[in-house]
């Protein structure tokens, strides 16, 4: 069995590249590997380049790989464009017709030319992807029964005729005649590994919500968050009991509906991205001050404004923390892996309940769309905080030491009032300076309570690398992957560094300050121009920071390593 392999498949819109990646990922996961599958879209929405990159390993996969071991490319131009990413000893898998492949004599590694187009001519244009898959599986030396099962399952799920399976078999026979498994690329099969599922970040959030007993969702389509809404709409009505999914006219309505649902005592969530998140700001501020629990997933994309809908970025942190007028705080969680997309969503719901506040999950396009193998969660052992409705008081905003008041729900508690005006303990408008000061301190206390708890439990920060190192890296969200790999590799190279990955970005865990203070230099790695987390760190911990900042596409481990060396 191999330790680590990365494969890129590159083509055009019609080549079924995404299908290849999906089926291959499932099959390789079932072979016992940890898997990461990253889909890359070209700039154009349709008809542009399409590619996906798959990395498998016996250890957790942190990054899809900057250069690859296997490159399959369908057109002369996609070969050309991607060849620089193929390792010198990597396998190039191309069509055997000269017009589909440029001169690759410069590539020192093995080249595998396959009759993909010839076979496609025989079976029809639509068979293209299934033929390619068969060839690739053969070249990789996979367990063919596993991949065949995966194909069958995929066809069934999408309602595609089983005759395609015959094409697959025919292609395999052809491959056996024409191609030989790649030297050293015999992908075996491991046993005894955890049972795992293959989820995208967005899927993991949906399942996190379902496990948290959220059955009410409202959302408006927006790339790259739409798939959550679609998945909810397919799944929710099939579950026992009552559920509701509303796709309203815009994002203001979406969060308005979520607030209404939550006011009745139901757990509810929405998902959006950049421009949609922006439009939710006013009602989000209303939810903060009316202390309405809700969960909002923001799958960040390239900004500002409409920006780059299909590119990843981490530039909504400022807006997420500060994007509402007035002194308005909420909780911000940032998962760094698909697994965390699942568990932090559960955490988000639990925190929303306990602190009666909106909780934002700050994901991004890279994390939301890519798939990873996730050790199958034992749903019965996951702690879920239920909504507790008080039926005895009408003091919805009662002043307490913790800042947390009794929760009341429409139709279940004594009658009460909710307003975005400054209100008193009963929720009624009261604009006296004393009341305003009192209620604004109460909200502040809630966050102090939370901060103390986090600090006590030393939670919401992952530390990695050598704790004694004087060089510290801080990163968040999906950029953590490249940093983790960089930290490991730097340590292998004899340059130990320490890293911290906060998973709660507001409020920031105080114990992160101890880490920062113990380092001579702090490098903050984040995919934005302004250094948004760095700014929060300086503000809160008064520590000078260095930055690795860029936009456009996700970081590679090499970039992180280079930057460390540069400033070291």
């Amino acid at each position, binding site marked *: 069995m191999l330790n680590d392999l990365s494969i890129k498949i590159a083509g055009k819109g019609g080549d079924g590249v995404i299908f290849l990646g999906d089926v291959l990922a499932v099959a390789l996961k079932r072979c016992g590997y940890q898997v990461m599958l990253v889909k890359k879209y070209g700039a154009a929405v349709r008809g542009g380049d399409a590619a996906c990159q798959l990395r498998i390993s016996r250890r957790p996969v942190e990054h899809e790989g900057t250069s690859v071991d296997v490159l399959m490319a369908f057109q002369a131009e996609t070969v050309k464009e991607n060849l620089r990413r193929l390792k010198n000893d990597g396998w190039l898998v191309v069509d055997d017709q000269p017009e589909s492949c440029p001169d690759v004599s410069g590539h020192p590694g093995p080249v595998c030319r396959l009759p993909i187009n010839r076979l496609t001519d025989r079976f029809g244009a639509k068979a293209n992807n299934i033929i390619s898959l068969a060839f690739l599986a053969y070249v990789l030396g996979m367990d063919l029964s596993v991949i065949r099962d995966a194909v069958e399952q995929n066809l069934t799920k999408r309602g595609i005729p089983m005759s395609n399976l015959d094409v697959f078999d025919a292609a395999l026979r052809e491959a056996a005649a024409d191609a030989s498994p790649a030297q050293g690329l015999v992908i075996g099969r491991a046993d005894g590994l955890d049972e795992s599922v293959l989820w995208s970040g967005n899927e993991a959030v949906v399942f996190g919500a379902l496990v948290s007993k959220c059955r009410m969702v409202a959302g408006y389509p927006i790339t790259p968050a739409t798939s959550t809404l679609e998945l909810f709409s397919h799944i929710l009505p099939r579950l026992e009991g009552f559920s509701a999914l509303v796709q309203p006219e815009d994002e203001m309505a979406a969060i308005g509906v979520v607030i*209404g649902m939550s006011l009745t005592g139901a757990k509810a969530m929405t998902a959006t991205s950049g421009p949609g998140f922006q439009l939710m700001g006013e009602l989000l501020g209303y939810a903060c001050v009316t202390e309405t629990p809700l969960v909002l997933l923001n799958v960040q994309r390239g900004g500002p404004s409409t920006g780059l809908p299909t590119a990843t970025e981490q530039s909504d942190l400022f807006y997420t923390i500060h994007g509402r007028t007035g002194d308005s705080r909420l909780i911000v969680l940032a998962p760094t892996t698909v697994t965390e997309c699942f568990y932090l969503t559960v955490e988000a719901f639990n925190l929303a309940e306990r602190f009666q506040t909106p909780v934002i999950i700050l994901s991004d396009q890279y994390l939301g769309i890519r798939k990873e193998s996730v050790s199958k969660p034992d749903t019965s052992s996951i702690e879920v905080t239920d909504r507790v409705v008080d039926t005895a008081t009408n003091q919805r905003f009662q002043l307490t030491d913790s800042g947390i008041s009794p929760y009341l729900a429409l139709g279940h508690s004594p009658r009460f009032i*909710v*307003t975005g005006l400054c209100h008193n303990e009963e929720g*009624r408008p009261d604009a006296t300076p004393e009341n305003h000061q009192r209620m604004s301190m109460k909200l502040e206390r809630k966050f102090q309570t939370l901060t103390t708890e986090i600090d006590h439990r030393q939670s919401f920060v992952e530390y990695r690398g050598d704790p004694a190192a004087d060089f510290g890296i801080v990163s968040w969200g999906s950029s953590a992957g490249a940093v983790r790999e960089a930290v490991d590799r730097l340590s292998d190279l004899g340059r130990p560094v320490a890293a911290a990955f906060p998973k709660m970005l507001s409020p920031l865990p105080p114990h992160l300050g101890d880490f920062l203070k113990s380092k001579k230099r702090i490098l903050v790695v984040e995919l934005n121009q302004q250094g948004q987390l760095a700014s929060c760190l300086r503000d809160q911990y008064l520590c000078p920071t260095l930055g690795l900042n860029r936009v456009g596409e996700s970081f590679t481990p090499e970039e992180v390593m280079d930057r460390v060396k540069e400033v070291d």
Partner: protein
Amino acid sequence: MHLPSEYRSQMSSVIYCKRCGNHVIMGAMQKAFAQQDIDPESLVIVAGIGCAGRVPFYINAYGVHTLHGRPLPVAIGIKTANRNLKVVVVAGDGDAYGIGGGHVPHATRKNIDLVFVVVDNSVYGMTGGQTSPTTRQGHQTSTTIYGTILEPVSPVFRSLADKVSFVARGTVEHSAQLIDLLQQALAHPGFAMVHVLSRCPTHDKLHYFDENAARVRDIPPDHDRTSLPAALNLCLDPDHLYTGVFHQVLKPTYNDRADMILAKAKAQKGITTVEDLVEQYV
């Protein structure tokens, strides 16, 4: 049986100006609630921002004072999640047809089961008398001292175009009729819109109403309210300003339709559990 006074809140003192139309409307609502025997424990008043928007503070029920223009989405969330609640939405003309105008047709096409009371004083009362979407052309307001240049929107006409299942118009000068219309609206299963011609004596001295009082007519008793063309005819009549019920039809509410989907999904794809669904990703 409940008394109208039971719907009056003792908790906040009413700060409406003297002779404000909102006094009449609140009184009419309380009487209609009583006569329809609405359980105050399951009544939710949802409102936007403005003078009309303050109604929830004065009614003894659950009160949700949302944001300017946003009462409908919040109300939809409430009714979707808990159909046992009786939801009444109160919005000013600015709330309903200015800033909140985009939400209206999507609430109506859902036929969500609630009463939508539009308090149309044809001015932005709360902020001091600026021109509103229903201010008539030529009329002076604090932002249009040389006269309002836009044609007003027509709430009834638009409701008919939005296929609202119950469309009525009343006025604060005809409170008995208003109580009756509100009762019918409360009894109607589906989206019930009541357009109320109100008054803002503080900021609008020469009211629309005064200029048009002579044109006001009850909708004739022989009007076929199930006929959309008949309703359009009344609403387009240049000589009369009709009050009463323009249109009423019965069709499935949003909750009915959502239930159908829940049933259909299970019938088509089978009932399932979260654990089973997770299993599909193994």
